[in-house]
């Protein structure tokens, strides 16, 4: 029964997401797709922040590198299949994370935060200051990738609804795979590193290799989110790699609750909803956002995902008093 109550909201939410594009306007379909992309991005960061205890402040780099890979691999006039563009862009992001990871994982704590930021800034200025990807203006995608299977075009990415379903399917896939991964011994070793790295070393684990593996994986997943973002919007700008982007996704993770997989998803929906709601309500949406964030820190340690546990504790406490 308890299990039912835990999974029921998830199933219900999923059902709503599945039928959503049939009722909502295109604008909302795209908005939810954008939110789910942010959720994938945030889940990938949570692997580092929440599960391994590595606070990366440069996660946008991998998001953007994958996006630029898509743009640079689709020259004008060429027809490109998603079957190779998707893996190649994800691999590019993962490769970048692997190389950067070798360097940044030598540092710890605040230094780690700053070095990840430094590498992300390097990537940002690489695209911002050189002509590699259209400079500070960014570039438009010449054509969206195509998806053929056995000679039939199964999805057309000119249609936002098709992108929506692809994004939804991938979000579910990522969520379930990560849930599985974190239950394996690999996942337990990561959590062990977070709580006490010295002990893991003493137990004979080469923690560096595990950290590098998860850093690379998180980079690749951020790349997946970056790929989907380009697919949705059709253009790439250096802003995708900017430190604001890294800050925002970190915000989403903390808002939702670190160290959980559902937290980043909740965080993403809250973040986008808040942004849209406040933007519609007042011009000064950043003010609303800022105040909200400050209130969350004061009132909600543990983020949104911790609310059910807090409510339960409150209820139990109340029952005891009666």
């Amino acid at each position, binding site marked *: 029964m308890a299990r039912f109550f835990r999974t029921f909201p998830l199933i219900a939410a999923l059902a709503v997401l599945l039928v959503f594009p049939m009722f909502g306007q295109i604008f909302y379909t795209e908005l939810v797709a954008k939110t789910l992309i942010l959720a994938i991005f945030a889940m990938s960061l949570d692997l580092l922040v929440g599960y391994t205890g590595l606070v990366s402040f440069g996660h946008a780099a991998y998001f953007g590198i994958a996006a630029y890979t898509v743009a640079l691999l689709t020259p004008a006039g060429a027809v490109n299949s998603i079957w190779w563009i998707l893996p190649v862009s994800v691999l590019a992001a993962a490769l970048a994370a692997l190389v950067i990871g070798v360097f940044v994982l030598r540092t710890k704590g605040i230094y780690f935060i700053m070095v990840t930021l430094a590498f992300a800034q390097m990537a940002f200025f690489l695209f911002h200051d*050189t002509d590699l990807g259209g400079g500070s203006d960014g570039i438009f995608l010449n054509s969206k990738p195509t998806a053929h299977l056995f000679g039939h075009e199964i999805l057309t990415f000119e249609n936002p609804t098709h992108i929506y379903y692809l994004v939804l399917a991938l979000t579910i896939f990522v969520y379930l795979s990560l849930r599985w991964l974190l239950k394996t011994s690999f996942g337990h070793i990561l959590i062990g590193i977070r709580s006490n790295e010295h002990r893991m070393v003493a137990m004979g684990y080469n923690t560096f290799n595990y950290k590098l593996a998860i850093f690379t994986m998180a980079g690749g997943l951020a790349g997946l989110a970056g790929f989907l973002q380009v697919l949705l919007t059709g253009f790439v700008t250096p802003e995708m790699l900017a430190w604001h982007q890294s800050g925002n996704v970190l915000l989403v993770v903390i808002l939702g609750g670190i160290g959980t997989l559902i937290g980043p998803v909740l965080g993403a929906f809250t973040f986008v909803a808040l942004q849209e709601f406040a933007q519609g309500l007042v011009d000064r949406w950043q003010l609303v956002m800022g105040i909200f964030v400050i209130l969350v820190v*004061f009132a909600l340690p543990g983020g949104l995902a911790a609310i059910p546990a807090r409510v339960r504790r409150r209820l139990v406490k109340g029952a005891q008093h009666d």
Partner: protein
Amino acid sequence: MDIVSLLIQTLNAVQYGLVLFLVASGLTLIFGIMRIINLAHGSFYMIGAYMAFGLSSGITETLPAMIAVGLILSFFIGFVLEWVFYAFLYQREHLEQVLLTYGLILVFEELRSILFGNDVLGVPVPEVFAGSIPLTDTLSYPVYRIFISVACLIMAGLLYYLIRHTRLGMMIRAGSHDRTMVQALGININLLFRIVFAIGFMLAAFSGMISAPMTSVSPGMGNQVLIISFVVVVIGGIGSVGGAMVAAMVIAFADVFGKVLVPAYAGMFVYLVMALVLLWRPEGIFRKG
């Protein structure tokens, strides 16, 4: 590069380095003593710059009065800010500090936009320093930049004196070394933190204020400074004011000469230097403990 432009670029780098140092020294004090990651520090710089704009357009005309008013005002704002927001953060984790100070950035930026709008604003250079020193027939060096360097040096000297030779400085040094012990000795640590924070705010605001006539005042100016001063703090070694000075100069020279020598890669250059330094010494040049 001929000798005159080398001289000009060197002066520019020194001046930029000194401004960076003032911003970063506050940041490193706040981090070293209070263990708080203050993302809003760039906003303090921005507040200083807008303060200069506000004060110069009408309220005070003379430079010394403007600086005095600005310093007192910023010390006061810093004091109150610590009281209302930052005092809650000491027991919290780094992540929550990042979150709260990020929220503060958004609030400050929006308040700025409400009060001053989103246009780039100019602050006039005070008349006394409006001229420039001719170096060759075509090249000259603005006096105001020299004034900035001198003002920053005076400020740095005062800071040095404060930290090395006063009772407050002794408490600050002790506090960065062992907080619990300082508390056990009966020093009011809350008040000490509040004062350190206010000094940090004041230094950032002062830098913003005197840089304003040169850089003009624009939205987003705080963020640029924030990231670079974090770089300085980290390279210098967190909590080390002397380290911040060395690191600020390294970064300033890397930036200024990077822009001259490899313009397309100048943005990357600073971060490359940072990455290299940290790979060489993962806890900064002047690591502590």
